[in-house]
């Protein structure tokens, strides 16, 4: 029925305006702002006028090089070794600070490997950003499959007609409702190195044989701890998405499979999983995007430390843009993150396309 209200485009726009205006103000405009600012040297507060600097911000973030170091030799030409028998190399700064190599100026060592006697050193103009990038990718690579898989298992368990199953549904979903900041604070206590719940628990299980670990203070365990907690926190959300997918599969298909003699695993393989295709794509893309946006946990729990072992891309963007008041640098990171997520989402969509 076309009433006067629905035909009048003016009224329609008037109703849409508040929402549309807010979206424009806080999402669309900043999106284009980020592109613009990443090409300038804009700072948050600065007396100097803003200048256009081209892709300098991107170069400062992404420049990478590999340099080769020959071992130090004594007069006889023999390789000099230190007390542990390790080969001694000239310091990297002899190259990055040398006027002979202006192209390496300001770069620092990221990591190195040794082949025969020569050492190859990867130097980056922004080592912290590189670490953040690697950490973020690691986080995505671990969290996306583990969280998606766990959520699916929970959904399959929940999707049964049992008495009181709703209680479990609620329990698994509860962490999703709690603010991530609160969850992060709680888990900081759980992960505490001295008197944390996790250490106490492990110690109780092993009858005191467990050596307490400072989960968030140790570079080897910090990122893993944050991964585990993040997986736990959002698994309930994805469980619900899987559940909605499971419930769209017609029960008669299961009955048909049962008549044909399919085992539980065969039923899952031939009926459930193909029926979840679209849900799987959705869950994978959502988890990937959320994982790339990792920030609150880092901000509350580790601040990027220890030894930059939990630096992430978004944390760096905020740190730079507001912490160091380098808005153009923060914007550049945002743009890089946007392109990264876009690329990966497109690849995922292509891989999971309808064949």
């Amino acid at each position, binding site marked *: 029925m076309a009433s006067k209200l629905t035909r009048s485009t003016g009224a329609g726009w008037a109703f849409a305006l508040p929402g549309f205006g807010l979206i424009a103000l806080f999402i669309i405009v900043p999106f284009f702002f980020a592109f613009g600012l990443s090409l300038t040297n804009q700072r948050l507060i600065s007396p100097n006028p803003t200048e256009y600097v081209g892709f300098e911000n991107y170069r400062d973030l992404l420049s990478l090089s590999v340099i080769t170091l020959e071992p130090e030799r004594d007069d006889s030409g023999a390789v000099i070794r230190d007390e542990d028998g390790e080969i001694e190399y000239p310091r990297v700064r002899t190259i990055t600070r040398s006027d002979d190599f202006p192209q390496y100026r300001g770069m620092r060592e990221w990591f190195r490997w040794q082949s025969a006697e020569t050492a190859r050193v990867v130097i980056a103009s922004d080592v912290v950003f590189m670490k953040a990038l690697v950490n973020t990718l690691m986080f995505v690579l671990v969290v996306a499959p583990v969280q998606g898989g766990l959520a699916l298992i929970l959904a399959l368990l929940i999707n049964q007609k049992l008495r009181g199953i709703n209680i479990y549904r609620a329990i698994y979903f509860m962490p999703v409702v709690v603010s991530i900041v609160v969850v992060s604070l709680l888990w900081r206590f759980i992960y505490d190195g001295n008197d944390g719940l996790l250490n106490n628990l492990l110690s109780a299980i092993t009858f005191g044989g467990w050596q307490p670990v400072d989960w968030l203070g140790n570079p080897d365990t910090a990122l893993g701890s944050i991964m585990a907690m993040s997986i736990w926190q959002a698994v309930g959300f994805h469980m619900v998405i899987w559940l909605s997918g499971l419930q769209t599969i*017609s029960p*008669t*298909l299961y*009955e*048909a*499979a*049962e*008549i*044909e*003699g*399919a*085992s539980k695993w*065969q039923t899952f393989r*031939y*009926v459930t999983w*193909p*029926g979840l*295709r679209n849900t799987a794509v959705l869950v994978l893309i959502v988890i990937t995007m959320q994982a790339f946006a990792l920030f609150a946990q880092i901000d509350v729990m580790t601040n990027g430390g220890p030894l930059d072992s939990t630096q992430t891309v978004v944390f760096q963007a905020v740190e730079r843009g507001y912490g160091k008041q380098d808005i153009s640098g923060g914007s550049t990171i945002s743009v890089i993150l946007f392109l990264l997520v876009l690329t990966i989402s497109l690849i995922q969509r292509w891989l999971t396309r309808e064949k």
Partner: protein
Amino acid sequence: MADVRLKNVRKSFGAVDVINGVDIEVEDGEFVVFVGPSGCGKSTLLRMIAGLEDITSGTLSIGGTVVNEMPPKERGVGMVFQTYAIFPHMTVRENMGFGLTIARAGKEEKDRRVNEAARILQMEHLLDRRPSQLSGGQRQRVAIGRAIVRKPSVFLFDEPLSNLDAALRMDMRMEIGKLHQQLEATMIYVTHDQVEAMTLADKIVVLRDGEVMQVGTPMELYHNPANLFVAGFIGAPSMNFLSVDVSEVADGVALVSNPSLDPVRIGSVKQPVAVGHKATLGIRPQYLHPTDPDKGMLHGTVALTERLGAETIVDVAMKDGTKIIAALSEDRMLDPGTEIGLTFDTEQAHLFAEHP
């Protein structure tokens, strides 16, 4: 091939009894139709035979083996569902070969059996399509094909034609009939459509509220209904029921009448009736013939005439306010308001002690 026997089978969901002690014998190679109004338990009964529902008590045997506790796959049944239940992400070939894939049969055998089933159902050209590219009738054919491929000893059909349009339903009905002749397999077919039941069945089981009302060949049910329910359920338009007074009973023949019915003697007395009591006289609309108002045994006025071409349905208002329907096998216009008399062959009328 196998026979199916149900002995005192019951099913309850909690306190609700859905099937109340059913005894049915399905012979090897027989086509049996379970028919009844919705909620009569016919689908539940079929699902119990399939193994999709537990049997609360009683015994179910297929081919001489009690299968109460067996999972569906061990019962050797194939089932066709109302909603087809074909897998949307598989091609027709994969759908039909699904049972063999599950049983890890070789590719050659699978191909051979799928092709054979496709030939029987005349759908070889559809094998590489996906279900979304098929019409409703073709989808149901795929579902039937999937059942055939596994060579089950008993075929179960759960209202397979209900989702199809009228024209297609008739085609598929005939195909299923042909299929039964070709395969000579035991088939149990559930429907609420009495036309399907009448045309397909060797034996019809009429169910109501989880109880068997009557078992018999289609013609037995049509010509000799055991009770009012079966009499009213089988045949279209439904049998007319007249409340009559019994004034005489002798040698199984009763003399009955009512204000608009002249006294008639009815030989087909289905249930014992007593003199002085009310009884119900059932006459099929097809056996009523119009005549002059002063002739015939029934008297009334024409209320409505529906002309279908080869058949004319006449609604007649009787003197006592009841209505009765006559189906004339000719095209004939009877103006509403005309007084009319109706005659019928008393051999074709049935007398029941029950009241509708």
